[in-house]
């Protein structure tokens, strides 16, 4: 899919039934192969944006295209993998079952899903926990399993909603290694995070959002040049106060 953006949001608006305007005519385009960071305070609209892309909320108006395909179509759904901020693992399934069933939901044959699950368990060092149910895993193992599940069906666009929230330093570095490697293999990544150093470290392109609107978007050095300051934290503070 040459020259087709991995993600296009056109005038995307989401107003919840409560009246809250979470996204206000939001425009965004992410080229294929990009490592894109989305920064903003709580309530900025990051999770709403991701939920809209993943067809987990109803969109009020606007358009979402995944590699040029409307986001509600099955073909578009297959192209996205998501690791949500909250650990939402099936409490009745063990690690291997979680991965195999996820592969099935995305149309993989049982044999392919089993093979891929074994690969993912090896990649994320989960093999020893293959038969352990999700509620019995440590917090770090659950984060790994969330990431492994998001990658099971080999999506070219992976959305990571605060994947390192609440994890210790060692696991954060380890998850960074997984994510960097995934990007190096050609996967487009959309990352939301509260950790500014994480966005600066990983993302080639960064967007700052507040109250459902895009405030700024550029590389970290370009944002520093535009807004002034010595770090991304300075840019963030200035942008949010603007």
């Amino acid at each position, binding site marked *: 899919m040459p020259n087709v953006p991995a993600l296009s949001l056109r005038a995307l608006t989401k107003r*919840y*039934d409560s009246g809250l305007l979470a996204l206000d005519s939001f425009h965004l385009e992410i080229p294929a192969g990009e490592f894109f960071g989305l920064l903003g305070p709580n309530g900025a609209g990051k999770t709403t944006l991701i939920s809209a892309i*993943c*067809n*987990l*909320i*109803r969109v009020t108006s606007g358009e979402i295209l995944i590699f040029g395909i409307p986001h509600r179509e*099955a*073909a578009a*759904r*297959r192209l*996205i993998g*998501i690791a*949500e901020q*909250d650990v*939402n*693992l*099936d*409490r*009745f*399934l063990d690690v291997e*079952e979680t991965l195999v*069933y*996820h*592969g*099935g*939901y*995305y*149309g*993989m*044959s049982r044999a392919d899903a089993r093979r891929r699950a074994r*690969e993912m368990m*090896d*990649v*994320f*060092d989960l093999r020893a926990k293959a038969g352990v149910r999700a509620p019995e895993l440590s917090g770090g193992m659950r984060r790994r399993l969330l990431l492994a*599940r998001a*990658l099971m069906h*080999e999506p*070219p666009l992976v959305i990571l909603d605060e994947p390192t929230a609440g994890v210790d330093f060692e696991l954060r570095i*380890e998850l960074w*290694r*997984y994510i960097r*490697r*995934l990007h190096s*293999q*050609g*996967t487009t990544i959309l990352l939301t995070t509260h950790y500014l150093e994480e966005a600066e470290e990983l993302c080639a392109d960064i967007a700052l959002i507040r109250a459902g609107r895009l405030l700024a978007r550029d590389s970290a050095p370009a944002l520093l040049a535009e807004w002034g300051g010595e770090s991304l934290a300075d840019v963030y503070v200035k942008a949010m106060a603007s």
Partner: protein
Amino acid sequence: MSDVALTVEPAGGALSRAVAGHRGLAALATREVHRVIKLWTQTIVAPVVAAFLFILVFGLSLSGRIKLVDHVPYRQFIVPGLIVMAMVQNAYANNSASVFQARLDRYLNDVLASPMRNWEINLGLSLGGAVRALFIGLVLAAASLPLTGAPIRDPLVLAAATVLGVTMFSSLGVVVGIYAKTWDHAGFVQNIVIVPLSFLGGVFYSVSRLPSPWREISHANPIFYLVQAVRYGFLGSSDVSVALALGITAGLTAATVAWSAWLFKDGRKLKP
């Protein structure tokens, strides 16, 4: 970290995509049945034991005092109603609990974000309760028919009524699982609506023997018609015509199936 690739080239054309769509349904249905099997002491053994105790205690102990109901020995008369009561209660309980738990823990998002179609998700979530109910019905029939001597007079009517009843309550379970905001909501429908209507649906007695107005009131109970259709399938007799019983049961089943289908199509209760 292993050197295994995190991505591979996607493959497949239109045909493989069509096949893959049904794989999603198969996976979700298997997951729901898998849950039933994992929790077998709660999902199978407990309801079978409870229903079988009813057959033993009421059927065998009271059959000495109540000889015949509508020319049928009492120990045989109560078997169809008790089997269908156990089936529909468990079809409902299974799906309302499974869907509500999936919403509460938000692992339903893994399914909602997938390429599965709305009808596939609806059907996949419904099948767990249906399989559980059919398994309970088969075990109860296998245990109680030899014990009581109850016959199967009209297998076609029995099969039709069973499929309709299980479908109706499986869909109702999915509907309530979607609407429920707490565990109490799902339990309320079970304890305050389904169980009382089951007991008052002519499971233990012939409604035709009730004095007016209780006889007429009983005819407003939707479960009454399901019990009558199943009883006709087993014993060849019922309080109302089998066509009426099957017709009303089919109408109610169509209504609950349409309700659950609309909830998935509309999406408001599943996607804010």
